[in-house]
C-alpha cells in the first residue's frame, strides 16, 4: 500500500477555520473581521477629521507642494540639484544623502567592528585590552556628543582653505572639508574595463576548476599567485597599450574655497566617522559573542580532521558564529541608518534636515511631510532587514541547517 492512501481525507472547512480563526474557530474569525472594520473606520475618521480641521484652520494640506519650487540651496547633492528644482527633488537629495552616509557607515562599522571584536578575543594581551577599552569608551558616550566632538573639536580645528594641509599636492584637508582629485574617464577606460572583466572571469573559472579538483582528488591547488598575476597584469597590459584609463581633475584654490576636484563636506566626514565608530563598538561585542558561542569542540574537531587553523576559522567557526551574529547585526545596521538623522545637529543635509526640516518649515505641511519621512525610514529599514534575512537564509542553507 502506498503511503498516500493512508492520509486522512482533506477537510477544507476545518483547515480554513483554523487558518482564519485559530483555535477560536468561526467566532474568532468574526471577531477579527469586526476588529479590522473598526480599525478601518477609526483610521478613516481620523484622516477625515484631520483634513476638515486643517481646512478650517486654513492650514494647507495635500501633497501638491511636492511639485512647487524649493528655492533654497543644499550643500551636498549627489544628484543634480539647483534652487529652481522642486521639493520632490529636495526629498530625493536628502534621501540619497541619508543613504550614502548610512552605507558608508555600515561598511566601515562592520570592518572596524569585526577587527575590534576579533581583537578582543586575541591571545595578545595588549591588543585585547586596547579593543576592550575602545568598546567601553565608545559605547558609553552619547552619539550626539561624539558627532559634535568630531565636527567641532576635530574637523573644525583644521586650518582654513588658504592654509590647508596638502598631501602630495593633490589631497587638501581644511575646515571646509576634504578636496581630492576627481577621476575622469579617458578613451582608454573602455578597453581597461574590458581587461578587468576578462581577468575576473578567468580567475573565477580557475577557482571553480581548483575546487572541482579538490573535491574529486583531494589535492589542493595553489591558485592565488596566478589570480593575482591575472588581476594586476591584464589591466596593466591594457593600460600600457591604450594609455591611462583615468585622468584627474585637481582641486584648485579659487576665491574663498577650492573649486573643481572631488569635495567631501566636513559634515559628512564627521557624521560618517561618528556613526561608524559608535556602531562598531556594538558590532565588536556582537562578533565576540558570536565567536564565543561556537563550542570549542567544533574547532578541535576541525583540527583533528587535519584542517589548517585558517580553514577551521573560515569553514567551521565563522559560519556557525554568523548564525548568532546576523540578527543583532541587522539591528545595528537599522540603528545606524536611523541615527544618521542626528545629522541635523551639524548641518549635514540628510532627509530629516532638508525635508522634515527646511521643507517643512517653508511649506508648513507637517502632517504630510512627517508621514512621508516615516514611510521612507520604514521602507529603508524593511529593505535592510529583508536583505539581511536573505543573507541569513543563505548561510544557514550552506551549513545544511
Amino acid at each position, binding site marked *: 500500500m502506498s503511503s498516500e492512501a493512508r492520509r486522512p481525507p482533506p477537510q477544507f472547512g476545518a483547515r480554513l477555520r483554523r487558518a482564519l480563526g485559530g483555535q477560536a474557530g468561526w467566532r474568532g474569525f468574526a471577531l477579527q473581521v469586526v476588529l479590522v472594520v473598526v480599525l478601518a473606520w477609526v483610521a478613516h475618521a*481620523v*484622516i477625515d*477629521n*484631520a483634513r*476638515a*480641521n*486643517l481646512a*478650517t*484652520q*486654513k*492650514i*494647507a494640506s495635500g501633497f501638491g507642494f511636492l511639485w512647487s519650487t524649493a*528655492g*533654497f*540651496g*543644499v*550643500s551636498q547633492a549627489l544628484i543634480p540639484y539647483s*534652487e529652481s528644482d522642486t521639493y520632490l527633488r529636495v526629498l530625493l537629495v536628502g534621501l540619497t544623502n541619508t543613504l550614502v552616509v548610512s552605507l558608508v557607515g555600515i561598511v566601515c562599522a562592520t570592518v572596524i567592528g569585526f577587527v575590534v571584536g576579533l581583537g578582543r578575543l586575541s591571545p595578545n594581551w595588549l591588543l585585547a585590552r586596547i579593543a576592550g577599552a575602545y568598546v567601553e569608551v565608545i559605547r558609553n558616550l552619547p552619539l550626539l556628543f561624539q558627532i559634535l566632538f568630531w565636527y*567641532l573639536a576635530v574637523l*573644525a580645528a583644521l586650518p*582654513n582653505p588658504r592654509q590647508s594641509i596638502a598631501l602630495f599636492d593633490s589631497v587638501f584637508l581644511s*575646515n*571646509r572639508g576634504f578636496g581630492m582629485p576627481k577621476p575622469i574617464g579617458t578613451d582608454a577606460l573602455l578597453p581597461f574595463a574590458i581587461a578587468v572583466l576578462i581577468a575576473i572571469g578567468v580567475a573565477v573559472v580557475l577557482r571553480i576548476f581548483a575546487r572541482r579538483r579538490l573535491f574529486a582528488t583531494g589535492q589542493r591547488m595553489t591558485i592565488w599567485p596566478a589570480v593575482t598575476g591575472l588581476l594586476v597584469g591584464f589591466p596593466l597590459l591594457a593600460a600600457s597599450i591604450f594609455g591611462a584609463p583615468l585622468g584627474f581633475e585637481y582641486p584648485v584654490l*579659487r*576665491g*574663498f*574655497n577650492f*573649486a573643481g576636484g572631488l569635495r567631501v*563636506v*566636513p*559634515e559628512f566626514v564627521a557624521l560618517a566617522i561618528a556613526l561608524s565608530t559608535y556602531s562598531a563598538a556594538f558590532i565588536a561585542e556582537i562578533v565576540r559573542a558570536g565567536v564565543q558561542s561556537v563550542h570549542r569542540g567544533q574547532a578541535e574537531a576541525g583540527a583533528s580532521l587535519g584542517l589548517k587553523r585558517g580553514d577551521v576559522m573560515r569553514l567551521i567557526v565563522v559560519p556557525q558564529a554568523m548564525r548568532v551574529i546576523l540578527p543583532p547585526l541587522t539591528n545595528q545596521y537599522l540603528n545606524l541608518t536611523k541615527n544618521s538623522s542626528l545629522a*541635523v*545637529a*551639524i*548641518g549635514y*543635509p540628510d532627509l530629516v*534636515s*532638508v525635508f522634515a*526640516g*527646511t521643507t*517643512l*518649515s*517653508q*511649506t*508648513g*505641511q*507637517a*502632517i504630510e511631510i*512627517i508621514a512621508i519621512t516615516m514611510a521612507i525610514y520604514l521602507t529603508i529599514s524593511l529593505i535592510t532587514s529583508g536583505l539581511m534575512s536573505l543573507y541569513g537564509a543563505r548561510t544557514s542553507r550552506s551549513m545544511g541547517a
Partner: protein
Amino acid sequence: MKSATLMLTLAIAAAWSAQGASAQTLKTVKDRGLLSCGVTQGLPGFSAPDDRGNWAGLDVDLCRGIAAAIFNDATKVKYVPLSAKDRFTALQSGEIDVLSRNTTWTLSRDTSLGVNFAGINYYDGQGFMVRKSLKVNSALELNSATVCLQTGTTNEQNLADFFKGNNMKYEVVAFSTADEVVKAYESGRCDAFTADISQLYAERLKLTTPAEHEVLPQVISKEPLGPLVRHGDDQWLDVVRWVLFAQINAEELGITQKNVDEQAKSDKPELKRIFGTDGSLGEQLGLTKDWFQRIIKATGNYGESFERHVGASSKLGIARGLNQLWSKGGIMFAPPIR
C-alpha cells in the same frame, strides 16, 4: 525631540479635536491665568533671558504688554523658547497663544500656515556678517563663498535668490538653531553668516571677539517682523494687534512709563478716550477700561522698549532707522485708537 513632540501634538490635535472649537483664545488664556508666548531660544534684544533669568527684549515686551492688558500683571507669561523650524507648529498645535519671535510676514506664511500676522514691530532686512580680515566690503564680493544660516527662516530662499540674481556661486550650510550657526561660523566653517540684520548684531555679541566681525551694508530683502496668532480667532487677533498699536501710539502721544499715571488724569478728549475715562474702547476689545494704562505702565511705549533692548543705549546699539515713528522720518505707524 521637542519638534517630534510638537508634530505629534499637532497631528493629534488635528485628528481628534472637535471641529471649529478654536475661536476661544482670550477666554482660554483668562481661565488659565497665564499667557503662553512663543519666543526665540535666546536672541539678545528681542527675546533672551537677562542676567537675573527673566525674559527680556522687544518681542518679550509685547508678551508682557498682552499679559498686562489681560491680567494687570506683566509677569503672568509662560515663555516657550522655539527654534525657527518649530515655531509655526507650536502655534498651530495650540501650545502657544501668540508667537512673538522676530518672524517675517510673507504671503505664503499668512495663507498656508493657518496663522494671521497681527502687525509689525520691527522693520528689518537680511544682511551678511563676515570677518574683517576677509577684506570684503560688499555682499557682491561673496562669489564662491560658504554661507551659514539657520534653517526654517525666510533667509534660505532670499540667499538663493540673491546669489542667483547676481550670477554668483555659493555653498550653504544650514543648521537648526542659531547657536549652532554661531559655533560653525566662529570655527571658520563658513565665510559669511546671513540672517536679518538685527539678528546679526545680536548674534555678534555671542562671538568671542565681536570687534573682528562686521555686518556688510547691503540689505538683500525686506523682513517685516511681527507677532502672529492662529487663524480663525478674530477677537484674539484684535487683542494682540491693539496691544502693539497701543505701544506705538503711546510713543506718538508722548505717553511714557513714567508719566502714564499723570496723563491718565488728563482732560484732553483724545486721552480720555484712550484711557477709558470716556467711552468703552477697552471693553470692545474684550479687555478692561484701563487696558492702555496697564500696558504702558508695564512695558513703556514702543520707543522706550526699543531703546532699552536694541537701541543706541543697549548692547546691540542699533539705530532707529526705519523703525522711527512715521512723524520722525521712519515708517513705524499705528492706526488711531478711537
